[in-house]
């Protein structure tokens, strides 16, 4: 598997080739991160495309203070939040946005409804407040450490630990009682 240094080197010598490597390396984890946040495949597809276009435009200006992965997750998370906030700006409350996401989960061509437990688990995650949902997904599925999540979300690592703990408790409760 190719590492980030190889991608950086390739980007420095030939931007388009480097970018292709970057897409190959990151498109799946970034897609799944987006998908877990916005639920519908069609929305995730649009956002992923937008993320890559933004990354390509700003690749020359990428500062090596953080890893490429952290940078990509940050851009993707911000794009998802922008997408979700757009709905809120259209006079839709946070609860209604959450309900919309639940509905999308329950009426999609790209959800395997035979796996009832996995569907219920996603419902439990969607019942969390937005911030807890982001922290939970990044920690549980992507296995990022708190320092990385802190750089992605601009939140202190201690706060993130508390958020993750609360999220797990709420999910446990949801899965047990529903």
């Amino acid at each position: 598997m190719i590492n980030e240094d190889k991608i950086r080197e390739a980007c420095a010598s030939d931007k388009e080739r480097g970018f292709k490597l970057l897409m190959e390396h990151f498109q799946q984890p970034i897609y799944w991160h987006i998908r877990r946040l916005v639920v519908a495949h069609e929305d995730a597809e649009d956002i992923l495309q937008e993320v890559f276009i933004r990354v390509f435009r700003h690749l020359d200006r990428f500062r090596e203070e953080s890893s490429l992965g952290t940078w990509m997750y940050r851009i993707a998370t911000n794009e998802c939040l922008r997408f979700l906030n757009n709905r809120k700006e259209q006079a839709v409350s946070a609860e209604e946005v959450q309900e919309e996401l639940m509905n999308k989960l329950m009426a999609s061509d790209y959800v395997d409804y035979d796996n009832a437990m996995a569907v219920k688990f996603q419902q439990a995650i969607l019942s969390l407040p937005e911030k807890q949902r982001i922290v939970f997904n990044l920690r549980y599925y992507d296995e990022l450490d708190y320092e990385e999540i802190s750089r992605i979300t601009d939140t202190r690592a201690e706060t993130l630990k508390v958020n993750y703990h609360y999220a797990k408790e709420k999910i446990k409760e949801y899965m047990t009682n529903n």
Partner: protein
Amino acid sequence: MEKEFDFKNIGKQMPYRTPDGFFDRMQTQVSARIKVENRKKQPRMKLVIAATLAAAAMVLGLVFFPAANPEAGQVSSNPLLVATDIDCSYSDAMDNFIAEMPDDELEEWVELSEYDIFMN
């Protein structure tokens, strides 16, 4: 008593699926969009740079070579008035130029300006 949920039972399973060949198509689509953007960008950037240089040259010409201006005599008699005239015509031209510029082009121009040492 209900049995407590154990995360180990679910692991990283997700019910989400993607259409067949989605990831291969995504790469092709992004690459195609980048090619189109690059093709559009080149002549636009040339146009923006040329227009900026032309406007700068015009202002410099009027400031440093007032004798070449047929109304140069008025410069000494009423510099403030002439300077105001020059500023207006220059800013009107720039206003029109900016007003006619599509949003994405304007966005690129602003991005470019942020990193331009002469503008900052």
